Structures are given as C-alpha cells and as structure tokens.
C-alpha cells in the first residue's frame, strides 16, 4: 500500500515537471476535445498505479519510456514530416526541397545516388548508368552548395541517407553551413552512418567492418565536441525489414547493431553519456497494424533497459530511443498503385500510435519508378490529414493498456531477446554479420513470405487477389537523359578550377592519418574544403583500408 502512495507522489511530480515544461513548450491548443465536447486528457492511466505498471510502462518521458519520450508528445508538436527526396542534379533536388518546404514539410531528407553512396565519382566506370538515378549526385562541395542553396541550415534539420561515406557528406554539410555563416554547433540533422545493416541488407558498404567502425566512432567523437546537435547515427531496422525480416527480427537485429556501436565507442575510449544521447533509430512501419505499434513501444523499453542496466548510462537522454519511421516500401504493389495510398495511411498511423519522432510516407508509385511530384504531395498530405483531422495526436500513447497491444509488446520484447542471446553467442553483431547469421535468417523469412503469397495463403490486394484485367498505365517520373554527361562535365570543371596542389596535399594528410589512429574527420573536412571529390577521398581510404567484398 505504501508503494501506491509513492506512485501517486511520482505522478504528482510528473505533472509538475510537465507543467513547467509547458511554459516553455506550450501545447498546440488550450484544451483538446472530441466532436462531442468530451475533453481529451493529456494522459490516461490505470485506476491504480502499481509496481507492475510502473516497471513495464511508467510515465511518458520517464524510464523505461514505453509510453514515449516526451511528456506531452504530439499535443505540443506533431512529429517531423520528413519526406525522403533526391534525384538527378543538385539544382533539381534543391527545387524539390524548396517545394516540399513550401508545402509544409518540416525537415529535409536527402537521397543520394548510388555512386555517391558507394564513394565513386560520377565519371568512374562503376558509376555507369547510376548517376542521379536513386538520388542526387554529389561529387564535390560545389554540388552540396547547389543542393542546399537558399535553405537556412540553422532552421531546417536535414537527414542524410549516407553510410559508408557519411563522414564526407557530413563534412560537406558543415562547410556549406560555415559558408552561410552558421557555425557547426548551430546545425542539426542526422546521418544514417549505420554500416552493419549495409552488410546485412542494403549493400552500400565500401570498407571492411573494422575500419568502418573506426570511421563511425571518429564521427561520434568529433560531433560530441563540434556538432553537438547532430544525430551521429541512425541505427536502422528499416532495410532489414525491407529485405524480408519479421517485426521481431527487425527489432532484435537493430538493437543488436545498436549495442555493437555502443561497444565500439566504449572501446575507442568515449564516455557513454557523451555520445549515447545522439544515437537515433530508424524503423519500418509495415502492414500488421498492432504488431507494429507494439514493436515501437518494445524498442523504447528494451533500449532504455539496455543502456541503463548493461552499459550503466547515467544521463536519461542516453536511455531514450528516438526514432524516424518510414512506411514499408516492399509492401507497395505495382498493380493498382492507388491502393498504396491506403496501405501507407494504415502504416503511418501505426508509426504515430507508436510514438515516432519523424515520419516519411511512401508515394503510391514507388514500385514502378521514382515518385512524381503529385504522388509525393499525396504522401505528404496523408501525414497532414492524420495530424490535423484524425485526432490521434491529441493524447499520449493512446493504445496503452490495451490487453492486446501490451501483450504483443511483451511478446516482441521476449522474442527479440531470444535473438539477442543467439547473437551474443556468435560473438556480437559484427561477428554475427561476418558469419552471415542475420542475412540467412532474413532470407529464410523472405522466401517463406514469397511462397505464402504465391500459394495465396497471404493475400496482397490487387496482386494475387482482386486483380484487374486491364491495368491502367500511370504517368511516371522521368529523369533527364543528359544528366550523367552534365554531371561529369561539372566534375571536370571543379577539378580544373581548384588549387590542385592543396587538394593533393590534403589527400596525403588524410592518407597518413588513416595509417595511424588519430581522428579522421578533421582531415576529411579539410579535404572537402579544398574541393577534393568524394571519389578521391574514398579512394585514399579504399587504398588504406581495403574493400569489403561480401560473404
């Protein structure tokens, strides 16, 4: 009984700190009401707070964060609507960015083309056919300047899907900001920088695991000191899920990778509370509505416990799992593409009910090509409708206490721990990846799913059921066929314009640093500043570190 009083006391304290916080960050409205004038409370709780509730769910913004990481959640501010975009040239993508910002998008998310993601210049023989295709082509600082032209980097946060060469793109961003007169401590954003899931599922690796992990921990250390508002990694389950994993596998493998980064940073001598608050996560919002919600809630609880209990982090910010969500690309069908709008809506809703910090909603035509402007707009509108019309953002963690959702949350956590135990047995995530363990598990699930779909046991509307005989052919986004040649011309101009001697000298300094053990990021920043290209910088590192060739 005395416990209960303690809990009531805790709740009172929570109310007081929340009130104080609201002075600084007020809620969107004075009061929230339903259509029937029923007042919607900030937080709904069981009638009696007991120890089981407090241990498993707790209060929002308190350990173990099952109910979310902010006390008022979306009552204060909606999630960041962050649509992933990028194609063709930097100038073209800059136009799309400005369009999206004009349309009410609240953050940027850059898609790079594959040569950029794999550290090749646009004129490299491996880049043939790929320049500007899946994202924007960036060869040198000049392209980055064009990409971010007229965008106030102290006001807009930018997420960059870049992994193996994350340090190079971050360096470019820092230098562009400086040229805008904005110091590195004022910029904010995220680099994906998650190499382990590249080996597992996404494929844009360059270097072997060991030097890759060094680059990552160098970034952690550099940003902690110089770019404190930057999320230094976005530990990604998204692509693991896209490759075919189940919700439990996505959860487990992502957390296993997260642990590997923490351990690498600790080994490199960093202090946990110095880098852990800047770790971010990235999950998939897939079809199965309640399981997805449970997955997000379980992820928060698991990470909080691991950070506090296993790694002894003291700063509550180190315990909080913040995440971005994207709806599941592999759930989209090429058949009857407008149906995808409905799939995306349901998936987006699960991310919101799961308490995401930012969200990308896929466009209906992504199984066919890059999205058209109209499709991209509908995808953004989907989020805006959910935020402004559905009322789901008006109370914190609305599904807490649902028998079903809580049971699923517990079960997913248990199942994920079984995988974590197995990965520990294999020597941790890096070693498990090198042995191909996660890859095999995911492929097995993917193949079983495919068989179930082909047998008709799993229905995909419009594809293996309710088909149309005559599919209309939608208008698709086309890329400029001259793009690659133009990009190559621009690149050779940059090379002839720059101070070649300085550029070569910087590259040599980087080489010597790579041979030793000092932090590489300051050298990469200097290389970028002298207009060394991404291919040259990664080329030096390729020579020093070698290349990963898969297993």
């Amino acid at each position, binding site marked *: 009984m005395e416990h209960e009083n303690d809990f009531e006391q805790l709740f009172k304290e929570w109310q007081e700190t929340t009130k104080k916080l609201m002075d600084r960050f007020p809620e969107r409205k004075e009061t929230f009401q339903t259509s029937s004038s029923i007042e919607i409370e900030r937080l709904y709780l069981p009638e009696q707070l007991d120890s089981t509730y407090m241990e498993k769910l707790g209060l929002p913004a308190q350990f173990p964060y099952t109910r979310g990481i902010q006390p008022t959640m979306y009552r204060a501010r909606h999630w960041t609507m962050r649509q992933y975009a990028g194609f063709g040239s930097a100038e073209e993508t800059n136009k799309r960015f400005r369009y999206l910002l004009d349309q009410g998008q609240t953050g940027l998310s850059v898609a790079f083309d594959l040569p950029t993601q794999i550290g090749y210049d646009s004129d490299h023989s491996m880049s043939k056919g790929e320049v500007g295709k899946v994202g924007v082509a960036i060869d040198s600082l000049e392209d980055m300047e064009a990409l971010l032209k007229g965008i106030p980097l102290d006001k807009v946060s930018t997420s960059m899907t870049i992994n193996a060469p994350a340090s190079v793109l971050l360096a470019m961003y820092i230098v562009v900001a400086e040229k805008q007169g904005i110091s590195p401590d004022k910029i904010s954003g995220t680099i994906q920088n998650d190499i382990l899931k590249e080996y597992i599922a996404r494929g844009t690796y360059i270097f072997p695991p060991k030097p890759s992990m060094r680059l990552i921990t160098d970034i952690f250390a550099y940003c902690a000191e110089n770019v404190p508002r930057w999320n230094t990694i976005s530990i990604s389950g998204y692509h693991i899920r*896209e490759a075919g994993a189940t919700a439990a596998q996505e959860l487990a493998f992502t957390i296993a990778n997260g642990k590997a980064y923490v351990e690498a940073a600790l080994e490199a001598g960093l202090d946990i509370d110095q880098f852990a608050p800047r770790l971010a996560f990235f999950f998939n919002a897939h079809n199965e509505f309640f399981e997805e919600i449970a997955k997000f809630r379980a992820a928060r609880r698991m990470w909080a416990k691991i950070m506090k209990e296993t790694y002894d982090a003291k700063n509550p910010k180190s315990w909080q799992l913040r995440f971005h969500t994207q709806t599941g690309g592999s759930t989209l069908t090429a058949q009857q593409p407008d149906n995808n709008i409905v799939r995306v809506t349901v998936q987006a809703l699960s991310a919101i009910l799961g308490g995401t910090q930012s969200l990308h909603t896929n466009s209906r035509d992504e199984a066919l090509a890059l999205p058209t402007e109209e499709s991209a707009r509908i995808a953004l509108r989907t989020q805006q409708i959910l935020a402004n019309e559905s009322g789901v953002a008006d109370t914190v963690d609305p599904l807490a206490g649902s028998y079903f959702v809580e049971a699923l949350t517990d079960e997913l956590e248990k199942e994920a721990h079984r995988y974590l135990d197995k990965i520990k047995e294999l020597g941790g995530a890096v070693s498990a990846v090198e042995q191909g363990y996660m890859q095999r598990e995911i492929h097995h699930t993917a193949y079983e799913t495919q068989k179930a779909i082909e047998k008709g046991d799993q229905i995909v509307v419009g594809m293996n059921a309710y088909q149309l005989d005559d599919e209309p052919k939608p208008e*698709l986004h086309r890329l400029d066929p001259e793009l690659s040649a133009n990009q190559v011309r621009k690149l050779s101009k940059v090379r002839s314009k720059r101070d070649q001697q300085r550029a070569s000298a910087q590259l040599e300094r980087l080489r010597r640093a790579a041979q030793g053990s000092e932090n590489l990021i300051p050298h990469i920043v200097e290389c970028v500043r002298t207009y060394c290209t991404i291919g040259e910088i990664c080329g030096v590192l390729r020579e020093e570190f070698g290349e990963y060739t898969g297993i």
Partner: protein
Amino acid sequence: MKKKIRVLIAKPGLDGHDRGALIISQALRDYGMEVIYTGLRQTPEQIVASAIQEDVDAIGLSCLSGAHNELFPEIVKGLKAQGAGDIIVIGGGVIPWEDIPFLEEQGIKKIFTPGTPSIETAKYIEKVVCQRDGISLENPVDLIEKVDHIGIAVQSLDESLPFYLDILQLKLVGIEEVASESVKVAFIDARNVKLELLEPISQSSPVHAFLEKRGSGIHHVAFGVGNIQERIDEIKKKGIQMIHDAPKPGAGGASIAFMHPKSTNGVLYELCEKPSKERL
C-alpha cells in the same frame, strides 16, 4: 533424360537490393535448376565472363536502381561479342513499363515486373531454353491434374437424386443433356470431387448398353487434364489404346476422351478438360 538447366542470377550496377535476386535464385533451385548467384555490384563485363565460364543457359538480371536501360543491353552486346549470343537474358526489378519495349528490342528476352509468381519465371526459362535447344518439354505439366468426377450409371435421375440430395445432403450443380453420348447427366458437388449421374436417353447410348450388361453402378472415373489433345497423344505414345483419338464435347462445356478399358485393367477412364475460366 531431363536437361538440367543452368542459370546465372546477376546484380548489375551498384544496387544493393538483392531480396528479389535471392528469392528467385532459391525458387529456381527448388524448381530443379542449377543456379549461380553473382553477388552485388557486377559490371556487365564481369557478368558476361561469369556466364561463359559457368556455361549457363540463361542469365537473370535484377536491378532496382533505374540503371537497367544502360546496363542490360551491355550484357547482351557483350555475350554476342564473345560468341555466346545463344545465352538467354531475362530481367526484373523496378522497371517502368515504358522501358520494356526498348529492352526487348535490345535483345532482353523478357522483363518480369513486380508481382510475377516465381513459378512463372521458372517455367518461362525452361520453355525458352528447351525451344532453343530443340528439346521437347518432358512432363512440364502434370499429365493428370486431379480426379474431376466419378460417373455413375443410373436407370432414372428422378429416382436416384433424392438419395444424394436428401439423404446425403449434397448439392446439385446442374442437369443437362449430352447429345454425343445420348445421356442426361446430373452433376453433384461432393466437395473435393463431383459425381456425375448418367441416365441414357436412347437405346443407342453407351450407358444404355452398360446398364443392360452390368446394371446400375460406377461407370467411369474422369481425370482433369490441361491441353487434352497433347495428353491424348502422350498417352497413346505410351501404348495405351484410346476410345477417342480426338476430344469431343462433354457435359459443362468440357472436352473429353475415353481410354479403352482393355488398356487400363478394366476401368473406364475419361480425360476431361474444363473450359479455361473454370480451371483457375
């Protein structure tokens, strides 16, 4: 002997999405083919070299990055230049429909779009490889798909039907006359198989002769088949005597043909092909 088909599954370009490539590799293996998967980031030259070195019949290219128009034709060109133009090249991935005619013009035999069942891809490869090599497809489909129905000779439908409908509580599918056999038939749905009650409507009906000789009872068993003429030819090739060498119209719009009981240990078997919409 059945030809073991060898296929190279390849990922040209820089695209790292290999869920599709891995699934198709395993599906083709499960279908009985030998499959070599190249792994990621293969240049057209590397793919051509692997295909020749591995002596494959076909190459399956997977690309989701939009580089297909540049990369796929390079591979066809490379094969031709090396004198390996007989290797069949197919492709899949995120390929806009507008690009398919161009790719086919460039010598890519077929593009499979998202949602294609893997069995279709496997059968397609088998078909084109066998066509190229002049091999007839050995048992590409099941000779017999299922038991379609059991034929039962009765003196009178009116007298027999109440047993099935009232006592066994099965459903009547329909009654019709089949002129070619001079019978009136009633189809009864017995869940996994149908029962066909046959009442002769003239003395010339073979069912009349059957009743005279043996009385009411089981008359024949009908196997469901596809492509009935091909099946008749195959069965004849194996030394089985057919009563009908060419299909004739049966009940429900089906095409039917009987095997001679002399060849089948005394059982009268029918081959029966349903009109295509019903078979799906």
